[in-house]
């Protein structure tokens, strides 16, 4: 019985080491925040479209699952994810809609002229209010919204090929099937 006390430090060490191993596991980002709006209805928005007049609105997107991507011409990581969005739009025919977050229309247009336009339509969120309603805390952020307008997934930061293949595409497939 007394001897157990001498095992205590080793035991404590094991518990700590276990916790560290868990907290340092690959693919875990302690700064990542789950969206507060997960599985809730997306906040309403009705934004002037960048090109071709008209608007981009939540209610206009209902009826099919869509991907909504917050981006900005001044955002460097957005340029990193851009080729992936192009691939998604062209090869996988994913309906991607863009929201230009705190961006000037001419700057957003220039970015798309340079790097290609993966978006079916782009809404201009000049003052970042729609971003605020979505809980965006940095661009890029990517949301999957189902046909009823509910947010089903949020990706913070530039999308990676792994995220697209393992999470985004399967989820869209599931949402389209149901």
């Amino acid at each position: 019985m007394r001897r157990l006390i001498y095992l205590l430090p080793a035991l404590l060490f094991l518990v700590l080491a276990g916790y560290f191993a868990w907290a340092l596991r690959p693919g875990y980002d302690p700064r990542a925040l789950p969206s507060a709006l997960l599985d809730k209805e997306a906040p309403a928005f009705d934004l002037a479209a960048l090109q071709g007049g008209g608007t981009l609105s939540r209610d206009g997107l209902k009826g099919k699952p869509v991907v909504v991507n917050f981006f900005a011409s001044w955002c460097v990581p957005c340029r990193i994810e851009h080729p992936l969005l192009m691939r998604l739009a062209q090869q996988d025919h994913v309906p991607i809609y863009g929201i230009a977050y705190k961006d000037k229309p001419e700057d957003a247009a220039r970015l798309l002229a340079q790097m290609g336009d993966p978006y079916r339509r782009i809404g201009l969120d000049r003052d970042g209010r729609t971003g605020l309603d979505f809980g965006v805390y940095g661009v890029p952020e990517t949301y999957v919204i189902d046909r009823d307008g509910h947010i089903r997934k949020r990706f913070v930061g530039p999308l990676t090929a792994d995220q697209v293949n393992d999470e985004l595409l399967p989820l869209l497939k599931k949402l389209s099937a149901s």
Partner: protein
Amino acid sequence: MSVPRRLLSPALATWTAVARPFGCRARVVSIASLAVLAVSVAALALTALPTTAWAVQPWERLSDPALEARARTITSELRCVVCQNESVDESNADLAHDIRMLVRERLKAGDTNAQARQAVVDRYGDFVLLRPPVEPATYVLWFAPVALLLVGAAGSLVYLRRRAHAPGGPAPLDPAERARLDALLRDGDA
């Protein structure tokens, strides 16, 4: 001369020990020490000052001082999600500005403090609250310190009780040992 030195003892003792070899007189040393102390206290006071005054821009402020004070109270308890260890009130991040404006807008529209705070929580989740709510998921956070204190107190109590009831001290000497001890003590006297 020796009075202030005794009052400021540990820091001063080191300082005098350093200064003596250089031929400084004690009074000079005392004055220098006081100056060092004063500067350190001032520096400490400066760092303790709230840095809030620099993040909230003049044009963000509401004209109604009561509303503005409420806005400051609310935003100082909200976490800025960009620089996660600063409050929205202290942060210079763009997003913190947006949240400050959202809270002020809601207050102007007649929201209570709780409603305005909830507007931010609805968008960013409980994570933005620097003071987490008491709910099942945070019970460990809130109650673990008290629980650990109680466990520690109970452990100490058991330990102390047991020690008090244990047969105290070494066993008394038997006659042979007593005789030997006496002999040794006598030798020492001789």
